[in-house]
């Protein structure tokens, strides 16, 4: 299985990673990172099912889902609404308990991982607190996790710079555009250095131009921080463009129908969307989605 | 439901504790021997307890409602009717005045800018404190009985209605107003087709507030009138003569009145909402 990162020019990585990982020592070099990435399994979902009791009877949101995600991967979940992709993300983050099955994150149960602050969750809406300035919003998780005030300030500055929002510290959320707000919420999710970045249609509410721009920024960010990213989306081009792995899901009952590897170089640009490889993968995703649908209708 | 049960139990316990020393004092004055059971029983049936037990209050209330002819001065029904008539008259006057004022304010920039701050300011003033003067003043020019009380009720209840209705009349969003403009609707048409329908929810919300306030106004207005009839008069008389049970049963009557008035308004709200196609 060819690793996407092999195509990555290492000099770029060192440059990009430097400002972020000022304190860490071992992980600054991409080569060490690479070797750990291939070995560890960051998320292990085994035989997870979840049924909701609704007024219309039982709904099987997830049925017998099995999935392994390696460290450092960028995994997209795609599927029509009601296929359980958001639910799966919530189960992994322990925001929802599965009816049966188990989730292991870095060798811990999902609850232990949550209490150990392993998750940076980015929601569909920015969910910034309107009574806090941008800087204070970034500090929110840091305050909760007991970072020292100076450390809080440093980190807020560092992660604001990471999403290109230096200078907006004193502003309040409502004074920023939707795209900027979502960037703040991404910075907030990264600020405490969680193992996993979970993103639930983070750009769903934004227009396409902003979305393309943020997709590029997100890729750069992923390259710099080397997080494991779990990304829920509706959009096929977005999934293909961003991911190393695409999980195609289908509704009633919510289940995984296909897992597609997607190995473009890490420093890909929006132009690759025109290449035959890209179109081929997109085609495969679309076929998978259609199969899920015809099964149901 | 469980919370209500718990509260009633707490009430009983509190009644025992608060009346205990009173009853014990009574026994000791008579130097009669007493047992704990007698003491406890005494707290339940004391004639002028600090805190009457729930069954005493309910008993007095039932007695007051059904024990006398509705016209007898000891009947709670009689007193409630006196208060109710003042409340309803005041409420009707207040609602009318409130709506008319709101209409005027919505249609005149000058009125809005000169009157609105004063209306808001007067909300911060304890208007209820004016009640006794109103009674005295109106009494001096020969107005007595129902009218002065209703004027106080009306005075109290028109504020929330004015404020609520101004909000309601201005609640249609700019797009809807623009739509009316494209059809070159007259102000009167805009009022009847757009402003009124969109103000209805606000109307009922403020009516609910207003009817409670006008009941409070009527009760407070009965305090200084020489205490002849009405729930307020019963409260005052009860407090003069230490008739705790009478006070409590008058309070229960006030509570019943208040909740049934609100129930009536809510019922009307539901009916209107149904007719307007809302999900009631």
């Amino acid at each position, binding site marked *: 299985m060819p690793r996407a990162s092999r195509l990555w020019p290492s000099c770029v990585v060192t440059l990009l990673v430097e400002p972020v990982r000022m304190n860490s020592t071992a992980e600054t070099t991409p080569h060490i990172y690479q070797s750990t990435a291939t070995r560890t399994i960051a998320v292990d979902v085994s035989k997870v099912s979840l049924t909701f009791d609704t007024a219309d009877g039982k709904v099987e949101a997830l049925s017998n889902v099995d999935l392994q995600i390696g460290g450092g991967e960028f995994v997209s979940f795609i599927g029509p609404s009601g296929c359980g992709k958001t639910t799966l993300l919530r189960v992994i983050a*322990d*925001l929802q308990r599965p009816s049966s099955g188990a989730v292991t994150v870095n060798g811990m149960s999902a609850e232990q991982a*949550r209490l150990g*602050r392993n998750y940076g*969750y980015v*929601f*569909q*809406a920015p*969910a910034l*607190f*309107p*009574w806090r300035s941008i800087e204070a919003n970034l500090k929110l998780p840091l*305050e*909760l996790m007991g970072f020292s005030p100076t450390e809080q300030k440093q980190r807020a500055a560092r992660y604001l710079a990471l999403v290109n929002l230096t200078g907006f510290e004193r502003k309040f959320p*409502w004074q920023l555009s939707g795209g900027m707000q979502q960037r703040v919420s991404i910075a907030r999710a990264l600020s*405490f250095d969680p193992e996993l970045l979970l993103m639930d249609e983070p750009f769903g509410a934004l227009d396409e131009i902003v979305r393309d721009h943020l997709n590029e920024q997100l890729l750069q960010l992923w390259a710099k921080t080397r997080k494991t990213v779990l990304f829920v989306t509706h959009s096929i081009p977005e999934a293909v463009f961003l991911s190393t792995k695409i999980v195609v899901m289908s509704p009633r009952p919510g289940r995984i129908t296909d897992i597609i590897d997607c190995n473009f170089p890490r420093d890909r640009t929006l132009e690759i969307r025109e290449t035959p490889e890209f179109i081929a993968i997109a085609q495969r995703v679309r076929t998978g989605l259609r199969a899920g649908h015809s099964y149901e209708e | *439901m*469980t*919370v209500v049960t718990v509260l009633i139990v707490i009430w009983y316990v509190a009644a025992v504790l608060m009346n205990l020393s009173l009853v014990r004092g009574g026994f000791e004055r008579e130097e009669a021997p007493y047992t704990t059971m007698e003491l406890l029983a005494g707290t339940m049936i004391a004639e002028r307890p*600090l805190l009457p037990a729930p069954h005493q209050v309910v008993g007095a209330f039932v007695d007051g409602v059904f024990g006398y002819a509705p016209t007898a001065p000891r009947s709670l029904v009689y007193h409630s009717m006196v208060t109710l008539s003042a409340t309803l008259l005041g409420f009707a006057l207040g609602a009318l005045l409130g709506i008319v004022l709101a209409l005027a304010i919505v249609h005149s*920039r*000058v009125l809005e*800018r*000169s*009157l609105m*701050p*004063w209306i808001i300011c007067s*909300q*911060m*003033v*304890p208007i*209820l*404190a*004016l009640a*006794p*003067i109103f*009674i005295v*003043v109106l009494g*001096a*020019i020969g107005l007595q009985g129902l009218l002065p009380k209703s004027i106080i009720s009306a005075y109290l209840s028109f504020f929330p209605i004015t404020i609520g209705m101004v909000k309601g009349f201005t609640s249609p969003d700019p797009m809807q107003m623009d739509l009316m403009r494209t059809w070159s609707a007259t102000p009167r048409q805009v009022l009847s087709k757009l402003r009124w329908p969109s103000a209805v929810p606000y109307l009922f919300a403020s009516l*609910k507030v207003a009817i*409670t306030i006008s009941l*409070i106004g009527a*009760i*407070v207005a009965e*305090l*200084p009138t020489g205490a002849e009839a009405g729930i307020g008069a019963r*409260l*005052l008389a*009860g*407090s003069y003569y*230490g008739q*705790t049970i009478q006070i*409590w049963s*008058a*309070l229960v009557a*006030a*509570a019943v009145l*208040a*909740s049934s008035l609100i129930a009536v308004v809510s019922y009307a709200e539901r009916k209107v909402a149904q007719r307007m196609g809302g999900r009631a």
Partner: protein
Amino acid sequence: MNRRQIRLGFIMSAVCVLITLMLPLPLAGVPVAALMARPPTFLLTGVIVLVFGLAAGLRGLPAIVIGLIGAGITAGMTLMLLRDPLIAGDAASGFWMVVVGVWLASWICVVALAGLKPRDSGFRKAIDLAIPLLFGAAVFYLWEVVVRGAGVPPVLLPSPSAAAARFMASLSMLGADFVQTFIRGVLIGYTIGCSSGLLVAILAHRFEFLGRGLLPLGNFFSALPLVGVAPIMVMWFGFDWPSKAAVVALVTFFPMLVNALAGLQAAGDIERDLMRSYGASYAQTLIKLYLPAALPFIFNALKINATLALIGAIVAEFFGTPTQGIGFRISTEAGRMALDMVWAEIALAAIAGMAFYGLVALAERATTFWHPSMRA
């Protein structure tokens, strides 16, 4: 209202004052041309007519300012005339014509002011403030002139100046009443009522079963005429301020409970999930999320309660007090027909109430600046 109408209005005001020269001032006035017999007022009439004429000739803001000056001078003249014992209490058509002139001129000015649309925001704010102030001043002026001109018996309605004089003359008594009713009764009861209401709301929010039982109960109680418990509180806590504080605490408790509970539930699902994904404890979530999100609701309750508390304390005093307190004074002085004292007390209550409300509103502005309703 266009410029021609404004000009016409000022001319009409001038005419009103001019007509006065031909009308009797007091009802039983002997000379017809009463104003002629008073050289200073006669002269003043000329000045007023000139000023109004000038206002009619100008446009925009200067016209309004000059018109207001004219209205002021005219109002001054009527007050001067009222000092004449022949006129006070017995004023006739001539006098009322002048009053009509004042009313007309000030009305024109207010309307014209409301019609101005200045671009400078500071100027706009000044106008927004000036309009209600002018309106209020006009109301007080009319009240004063009508009461004194028509000789309304002070038992019925004292003039504002009489009430103001009484206010200034009995500052120490008012001060004692203020301390008794406001500082002791209202503030203590308000603090107890609001804080316990908030506390119970937090408990009800933390433990859902409590909330399910308490919310309908709270809604029920907050609609009740709770001031009715005043006599019971007087019986329990005695005549002095503790019984008033108890009434205030009781009437403020339920609005706070209901509002704060609604506010605590106002935090969005996403925000709650966010806190959960951080592994935050309930206490952390409460402080960082639930309470700030509830602030607008809490302040709403604080504002409602500011008025309720004062009413509660004053009404509770009707049921018996030591010999001081705003409510006590109002009921006893009303009984003695000393209405100027009553109005002075009402003014005190009004000032206290507005100041209290204003403080709460200021605190709200400072802490909930982020809420959409405050940003406008």
